[in-house]
């Protein structure tokens, strides 16, 4: 093992909050060598980003406080240096890129200026910085570097913006690059490209790369070594294969077990009655067509997944079925009637049977209503379902059904965790006794373990109550475990559809195959196989 270039020893950080001090990390130790890729894996609240923030001097004091420890960079303790000295290290020696590059790039300066600035403040001449900046933009794979330099961040796509961030971070050839969730919120194919770019650049420059992530797939894809964090402490360290195949700590075991993509694939149910039949559905905003004729069948009690990258129009399909947006053309037959042209009075009745669960449970629950009010609102709108004196009991029943306590009814949404909130949202949907629930990215904002719980809940409810799901997602492993059949969409068209087994095992279209190859698997061996497959397809 070569000498580590960056080493964190016994670091403890506390944040003062209104509810007393929170110890964000406790006695954390890790080290990173030149040329090594280290991953810190953790769920939200695990403190996985805190030590990196300490390295970059990004912890605001107060409310933060470093209780103990040292951060050695080439043997010198960063925490003992003056702010001025640390600014000389930030950028030229240690650089960092972030999740969500749109908010992390300054919206009012051109990307060229921002990259140049990284060099100019550390002593590079203006002219030299400029030519180097253009070279960098080309190197990270932006077309027309000279033109791109004069553009502003909002004029790029998400993947391109992350490339700009990378160019900026690498401008001065740092010895260490810290990447904090660099591919979260990017499409799978873009994620694969960005990870490949990071790997190439790392190999070329020999820098140490620290990746902070919540995604076992990212670890399997890129890391040499992995640290698992939980509640501010390191619970386990090892190679990705060790962690995945032979986890030691109970927390790691649970985490690995919860990872999607390993379960039995559904064989689909036969002979179930047809619930919804969509034919040739189109949608255009003005002259811009976003859906070009979508065909889709949903049977009773079946889970149909719609997968696709951003801009594929998968959420628009949901909006058309729920009539949140009017369709521009086509039909959607529901029990012999066309949903798209149904008169409002009739539509009200159908709305009992088609319910929706949204991506962000924080936003889909009215913050000023109690859980009791949120769930019973369904019966205010549809008074014939349930007499008023039974509401209280039924709410309690529904809460138990989704795994919450009956006395949670008096609480307000902000008093719940993300997973609990999503359960409330599901209870609300169940209140109307629907036949079809549309889940628009309903689990993608949740941590892996919570995600697995919610999926299990949905599956159980589907079985017990014979509910069909239209499951819109970008996360393929989850779809693999949960769906009966899959619809793959791209740019407003259906590329391929069929039973889940066929789509995952023998995809017919290149696009689907690309999607499958780009999606990350938590198992490093599977992932290695996929890489080979990807390289073959490139060749």
């Amino acid at each position, binding site marked *: 093992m070569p000498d580590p270039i960056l080493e964190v020893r016994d670091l403890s950080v506390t944040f003062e909050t209104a509810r007393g001090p929170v110890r964000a990390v406790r006695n954390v130790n890790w080290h990173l060598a030149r040329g090594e890729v280290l991953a810190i894996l953790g769920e939200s609240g695990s403190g996985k980003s805190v030590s990196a923030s300490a390295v*970059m*001097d*990004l912890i605001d004091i107060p409310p933060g406080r470093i209780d103990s420890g040292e951060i050695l960079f080439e043997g010198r303790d960063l925490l003992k240096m003056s702010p*001025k000295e*640390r*600014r*000389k*290290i*930030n*950028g*030229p020696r240690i*650089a*960092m890129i*972030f999740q*969500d590059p749109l*908010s*992390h*790039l*300054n*919206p*009012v*300066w*051109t990307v060229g200026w921002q990259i140049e*600035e*990284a060099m100019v*403040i*550390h002593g590079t001449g203006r002219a030299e910085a400029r030519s180097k900046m253009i070279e960098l933009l080309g190197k990270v794979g932006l077309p027309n570097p000279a033109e791109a330099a004069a553009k*502003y961040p*909002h004029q790029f796509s998400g993947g391109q913006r992350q490339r700009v*961030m990378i160019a*900026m971070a690498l401008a001065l050839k740092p010895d260490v690059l810290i990447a904090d969730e660099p591919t979260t919120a990017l499409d799978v194919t873009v994620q694969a490209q960005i990870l490949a770019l990071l790997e190439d650049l790392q190999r070329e420059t020999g820098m140490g790369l620290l990746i902070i992530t919540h995604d076992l797939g990212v670890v399997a894809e890129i890391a040499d070594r992995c640290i698992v964090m939980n509640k501010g402490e390191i619970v386990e360290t090892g190679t990705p294969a060790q962690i995945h195949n032979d986890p030691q700590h109970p927390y790691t075991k649970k985490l690995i077990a919860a990872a999607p993509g390993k379960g039995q694939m559904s064989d689909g149910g036969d002979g179930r009655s047809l619930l919804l039949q969509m034919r040739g559905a189109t949608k255009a905003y003005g002259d811009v067509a976003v859906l070009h004729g979508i065909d889709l069948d949903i049977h009773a009690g079946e889970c149909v997944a719609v997968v696709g990258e951003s801009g594929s129009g998968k959420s628009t399909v949901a909006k058309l079925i729920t009539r949140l947006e009017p369709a521009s053309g086509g039909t959607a037959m529901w029990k012999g009637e066309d949903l798209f042209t149904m008169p409002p009075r009739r539509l009200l009745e159908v709305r009992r049977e088609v319910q929706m669960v949204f991506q962000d449970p924080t936003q889909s629950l009215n913050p000023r209503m109690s859980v009791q009010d949120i769930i019973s609102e369904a019966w205010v709108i549809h008074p014939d379902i349930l007499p008023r004196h039974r509401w209280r009991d039924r709410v309690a029943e529904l809460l138990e059904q989704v795994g919450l306590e009956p006395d949670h009814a008096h609480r307000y949404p902000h008093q719940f965790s993300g997973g609990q909130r999503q359960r409330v949202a599901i209870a609300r949907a169940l209140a109307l006794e629907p036949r079809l629930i549309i889940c628009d990215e309903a689990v993608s904002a949740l941590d892996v373990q919570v995600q697995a719980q919610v999926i299990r809940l949905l599956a159980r409810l589907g079985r017990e109550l014979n509910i069909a799901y239209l499951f819109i997602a970008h996360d393929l492993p989850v779809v693999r475990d949960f769906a009966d059949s899959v619809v793959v969409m791209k740019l407003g068209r259906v590329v391929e559809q069929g039973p889940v087994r066929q789509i995952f095992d023998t995809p017919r279209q290149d696009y689907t195959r690309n999607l499958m190859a780009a999606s990350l698997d938590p198992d490093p061996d599977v992932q290695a196989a996929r890489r080979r497959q990807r390289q073959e397809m490139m060749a």
Partner: protein
Amino acid sequence: MGRFIARRTVASAISLAFLVMAVFFLSRLTGDPTDLYLPLDASQEVRDNFRELNGLNDPILLQFAYYLGDMARLDFGTSLRSAEPALAVVLQAFQWTLVLALVTMAFVTVAAVILGSLAAFNVGGVLDRVATFFSLIGASAPDFWLAIVAIVIFSVNFGWLPTSGTGSIWHWILPVSVLFIRPFGLILQVVRGSMINALGSAYVKTARAKGVAPQPIIFTHALRNAMLPVVTVMGDQAAGMLNGAVIVETIFGFPGVGKLMIDSILQRDFAVILAAIMVTAVAIFIMNLLIDLAYALLDPRIRY
């Protein structure tokens, strides 16, 4: 850009048209217009003459047509007090108000932006508390009261500054100071809030990770972003400065358009009032246009 200016002009023209109509119908429907145009003690004969001469006996729609025609020719009538064209009287006074407003606004902007930024950089510090105090005073103290208290202290008690008029630079100090306080307090608060947001933003974090020093972080990275909401409030305040100008000009005997309007109202010089309304409305329109352009200049995401 040309298209944007054209669209804004049309929108403002509609606003102006509403105003013109409202003034006309209010003036015709609420009483005898001769009451508005003529002195209160005018004889019946003079009134009848005036009616005949100005077509006030014609049907109301015809009168409205005349009125619009006069507007279009920028003919607002003749001032009762000075017998000069009302527009000339107003423009003369308007220059003073414009200078007063510009000078004050320049001081307000510079002071509020600097103090607000520094207060935001050290929340809870001494500067922050000073800023909060000024904001509260600005939002709570009536300017007429501040003006007369200032006169009592600085002019009467100490005799340092003149109480009214425009003779020298000394004459400007009190009016500008009084006019300064309210917009200063308000803009200061907006700058502070906006800067706190900007300094806590993700891109400032990026800049820190690049090794940018605190000063360029405040003034290059954060300030330009923070200025966007500030510019909006500055526009509102610059227009609102005419509110303050009415008071300040009246108290300090400053010959601007605010004092002119109050004098005209007390002496029922309706032609001048009408002209003053139109001139200020046009001035505010031009200013709003400038604000929009400043917005586009500051924020590349805004394109017209």
